[in-house]
């Protein structure tokens, strides 16, 4: 019973309390870059989640085989392989998604969330727990991307377009008529909406008596483990 309860906790912690994007401030690049529409945001969320779950499982299964000296390169090899597999599958079966995500699809390999979870969780925990952790974090990442995509597409174009629903036509007529608030889908809108979402997440966390989200420039970085003591000290300044 206790086992089940803690698994449940591993799953749901990623949704809000430890949301990788809004609380841990990881994976900011794809969050800002592909959130110009709901469709590409969800596509990115799913692609990254699949890579995250698979790499978590494999790395956790291999955690006793991989010598700790070469664990970072080994993790990178595993992650890069899954990214390439996902990329090939997307190209073959969802070419329009490949077009939307462009270079950000192979760049999942440097998404801090994935290497970060490998280092912080999968390398130390059982296969089942790592899989659950991957699902939770993946869902959290997708939720954050969806929120960003929805707000930016709604204000930026006045409507939502998803190619699988309604035959690729907008779901409703633009609420802003001919003049939507274009800046929302441009670069500045991305930064602004992200800032506002972090503020909201901070408010909710505050009510629960938790700290504000902070960007630990170094501790958030998965390569932190490879830094020398002197570097770690420099970094914390």
């Amino acid at each position, binding site marked *: 019973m206790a086992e089940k309860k803690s698994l449940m906790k591993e799953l749901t912690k990623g949704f809000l309390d430890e949301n990788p994007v809004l609380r841990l401030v990881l994976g900011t690049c794809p969050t800002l870059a592909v959130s110009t529409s709901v469709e590409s945001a969800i596509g990115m969320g799913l692609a990254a989640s699949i890579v995250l779950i698979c790499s978590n499982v494999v790395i956790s299964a291999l955690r006793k085989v991989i010598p700790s*000296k*070469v664990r970072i390169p*080994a993790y990178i090899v*595993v992650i890069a*392989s899954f990214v*390439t597999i996902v990329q*090939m599958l997307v190209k073959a079966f969802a*070419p329009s998604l490949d077009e939307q995500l462009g270079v950000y699809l192979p760049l999942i390999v440097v998404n801090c969330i994935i290497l970060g979870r490998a280092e912080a969780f999968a390398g130390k925990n059982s296969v089942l727990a790592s899989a659950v952790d991957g699902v939770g974090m993946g869902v959290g990442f997708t939720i954050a991307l969806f929120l960003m995509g929805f707000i930016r597409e709604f204000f930026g174009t006045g409507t939502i377009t998803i190619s699988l629903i309604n035959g690729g036509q907008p779901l409703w007529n633009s609420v802003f008529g001919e003049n939507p608030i274009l800046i929302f*889908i441009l670069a500045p809108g991305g930064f602004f909406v992200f800032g506002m979402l972090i503020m909201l997440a901070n408010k909710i966390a505050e009510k629960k008596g938790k700290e504000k989200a902070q960007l630990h420039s170094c501790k958030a970085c998965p390569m932190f483990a490879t830094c020398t003591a002197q570097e770690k000290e420099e970094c914390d300044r």
Partner: protein
Amino acid sequence: MKKFSFKEIAVPAITLFLIAAICTAILAVTDSVTAPKIAENNAQTEIAARQLVFKDAKAFSDVKTVEEASYVEALDETGTVIGYVFTTSSKGYGGEIKIMTGIGADGKVTGMEILAIEETAGLGMNAKKDDFKNQYVSNTGDFTVVKSDAGENEIQALTGATITSQAVTDAVNNAVEIFRTVEGGDK
């Protein structure tokens, strides 16, 4: 001089090598499965686009070349050439824009489709909308981009995306030019 330690140097190196080798093997298998599918997708997009830009055509010839530009001929039921389809590209705001233009034997543009585009979402990406694309249809070119009140052979620029509009128009004009070369060569 430190003594060479098998356990500290060789074991990690061999493990890492094995992991890399296995991963590469898995990738090679996935590639052999997906590569034909990807090639088929690309070919199908191309064929579908051809049909879209030249709706009257019943069939298309093999790819032909004229002065380093390649094109296909659009054929009717009897196999007579009724026009051409050109694929041209130009540099837009965010990268290369690749378009396909159908031009009838009378020199009128029958349709234009965008094959690859990486412009700003919501601005330059609007070039994919029919309102913009249809401006070229039934005109003979050369096209010029104007900001308002487009007349014959004039293209109304997309709001906030003059560069994209110009780039797409340049590519269409390129197609018109190749058309003239092809037609000139025939006569």
